[in-house]
Each structure stands twice: as structure tokens, then as C-alpha cells.
């Protein structure tokens, strides 16, 4: 697949995922799966530092523009996650669907914990309650989503093109 076509398809996918996350639902227990964050995680496993950081930044800014929270928060957080996953993929994580899923779950958990911390400043909420009614549904919904996105990105970044999870753009 040509790099430009891959880039366009990835951009369209991110846009669709983002619009689905913020315009459709909520699916279960009053929340949606974190489509964009999962996409950033999976994309980061197939790409380099610059691409992952940029996609994380733009995905996060898109999420900020679609929500009523503090503008810039998701941008900074997704940028950080995108970059860190590339870093970890080089050092520790191997490039397969299971490690991608575990990384994704941990990233979502970290993201939710950070959001809980920020919500706690205004409205203190018991961590256990938040874990049961917000963290858990989002984590459970992320599992099949990560599998699906990994398959999709495996197709977009095919082995024969010289890419695979864990081996990224030169």
C-alpha cells in the first residue's frame, strides 16, 4: 500500500472513530469505549515516535473539541501515551496482539485514573465506586476494540510492506 494512501485511510479511520465515540451512544453503563485512545495505542505499536506523538496529539485535541472538559487535557495525555508506547515497544513490549491488548488495557486504566484524579478536585468520588461504574465498563469495552483495531492496523501496515508491530517506520 502506498504511504499516502495509508496515511489517508488512517486519518479517515481516526475521524470515524472519534465521531463515533462522541456522537453515538452511550453504549453501556452510561459510557462509550475509548475508541480514540485504543486507536492511538495500536497505531503507536506500528509506527515511530514522531507519528505516534502527532497522532496522539491530534486525536486528543479532537477529543477535547468534542467534549466539555478542559481543552488541551486529552491532547497532552494522548501525546504522552502515543510516545511512551513507542518507547516501551522498543525496549520491552513485543509486537503481537496480546501484548497490544495488555498495553491498551493498562493505558486505558491509566487514562481513567488520571481523569478520576482531575474529577476528584471538584467532586470527590470514592475510587472504588469510580472503578466499578466508570473504569470497569470502559476497560471491558476496550478489549474487543483493541483486537479489532490490531487486525485493522495489521492490514494497513502489512508485513510485506516492511512493517509489523514492533518494527516501525525507519
Amino acid at each position: 500500500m502506498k504511504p499516502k494512501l495509508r496515511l489517508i485511510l488512517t486519518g479517515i479511520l481516526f475521524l470515524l472513530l472519534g465521531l463515533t465515540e462522541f456522537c453515538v451512544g452511550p453504549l453501556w453503563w452510561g459510557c462509550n469505549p475509548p475508541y480514540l485512545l485504543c486507536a492511538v495505542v495500536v497505531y503507536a505499536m506500528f509506527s515511530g515516535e514522531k507519528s505516534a506523538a502527532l497522532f496522539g496529539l491530534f486525536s486528543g485535541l479532537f477529543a477535547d473539541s468534542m467534549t466539555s472538559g478542559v481543552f488541551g487535557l486529552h491532547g497532552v495525555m494522548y501525546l504522552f501515551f502515543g510516545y511512551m508506547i513507542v518507547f516501551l515497544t522498543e525496549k520491552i513490549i513485543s509486537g503481537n496482539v496480546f501484548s497490544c491488548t495488555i498495553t491498551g488495557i493498562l493505558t486505558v486504566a491509566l487514562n481513567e485514573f488520571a481523569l478520576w484524579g482531575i474529577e476528584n478536585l471538584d467532586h470527590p468520588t470514592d475510587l472504588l465506586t469510580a472503578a466499578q461504574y466508570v473504569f470497569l465498563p470502559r476497560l471491558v469495552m476496550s478489549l474487543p476494540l483493541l483486537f479489532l483495531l490490531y487486525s485493522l492496523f495489521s492490514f494497513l501496515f502489512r508485513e510485506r510492506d516492511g512493517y509489523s508491530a514492533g518494527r516501525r517506520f525507519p
Partner: protein
Amino acid sequence: MKYFFRGRFFTVLVLIVCFLLGFMLSVAVNGHTMPHEELVGVLVSPIRTGFTWCKNQVTDLFSSIAQYDELKEKNAALREQINDLQQQVNDLHYHKVQNDRYKEMLSITDPSYSFEYVSADVVTVSSDGWSGSFGINAGTGAGIEKGDIVVCEGGLVGKVTEVGLNWSTVSTFLDPQISVGAMLLSTGDVGVTEGRLDLKAKGQCLVRYLNKDSAVNRGDQIYTSGLGGVYPKGLLLGTVSEVQYEDNGLSLNAVLTPAVSFESLKEVLVITNFSEDAQ
């Protein structure tokens, strides 16, 4: 990896992050919508509206095909219900006329409200489970201001918490940040709604500080009390699904199931002005 930190790209990235942190800090300090947030909202609002319109067309098409038989049965049941309700309306009209006559005889004045509305479509939903809010595609350009009350045909929805030129954010009364003065229709007891994370996940909220001797029962309807002047009196909030004592045993709490189905909300009415007229 190490070359990443040396390049111009890394410098630009750090500048962008510092810029965003500055934005976040300015919002945290000011506590209200900043011009940059408003600009983003103005630019993104048409995209949200367009996508939501497409989504609604697709879901309506598929649901009408898939649920044809079910809709046919439901239609017949609803026609029957309309006939029963028409009968009730006729009875109520008779009682209303009598009630008005008695009030006139006893010189009782009853406040009523006149409203000015703006209609708006729901274009974004709350996706993270923390806030019970959604976005609509109307703002200051349509006369909407922060704090305006939002209703729909089912009852009270919430109030406008952020507003831009062509967009607004509405927080429902399930949101932990929103409290509404509530009144039990059957007994007149007053309380206050309170959003909780565990109840919000089930689409419910709590009505607190009801009199401990209150004869509140499951199925009782709860309306806005109008106390405080923020919300007009008489807007339907929902029905009681559970009653429990407060931890200290001094008051009752009622779990409220809203009359409005927030998950399927497509259109709302924003009350831009309401005034109380004494009859």
C-alpha cells in the same frame, strides 16, 4: 530514540505541550469558556451536526426496516392508549374548570409561567461516564445564555453550563454538579436532586432531604419545586423507584428514575426566558 530528543520536531512538540498546558491553566484559573474554546466549538459544531444527522438517518432507516412488525403492534397499542388518554383529558378538563371556579370563589391566586423557547438538536453525547452532559447545536446566536433551563417533551433535562456562538453544553440533572429543587406531587414534600456516579451509570439520581415522615412511595411522581427561582415549578423530573433512609436516619432519600430517556434524546427545547404570572 535519542535522536528524537535532539531534533527540531521535539522542540516544536514541547512548545505545543507548554501552549496547551497554558490553555488548561487559564481555564482552571478563570473558570469560564475562553475565546479559544469558543472558536474551536464554533468551527467543530457544523461537523458534529452533520455527522449526527447522517447517523440519525442511517439508524432510523435500519430500525424502521428491522422493527416493522414491532412498530405495527406498537402503533395499534398506542392508538388504544390515545383513546384512553383522551377520555382522561376530558375528565381532567371538567375538573380543571370546576377547580378554577372554586379558586375564583375563594380568591386563590396560582402562579403560572410563560416561556420562550429555542429548539436545538443534540449533536454530541457524554462518552466518558464522568459527566452527564451533551452538546447541542445552538448558542448565543439563538439567544441562549449560560444557566438557561433545558426541557423536552418528557420533562426537565438540565441546564446550559457552557455556551458559544453556535454551540452549547447541557448538563443533565444526573450530573453530580447539578442540583434541582424537587417536590413530591402526592404529598408536597420538597427535596433536592443529587447526581451520583453509581446511580448515573444506571440512568438514575437521588432526591435527598425528604421529610422522614413523608408518605413517599415507589411510583410517585416528582416535579421541580420552583424554590430558588432557578427552575420553573411544575416540570416533571421522574418517578420514584426506591426509598431509603439517610445514613443518619433524619431524612428520606428517593432514587429517581428520570422521565426523560437521555440516551435517545435527539431534540431539546432551551427556555431562554420564563416569567411567573399570577392568575
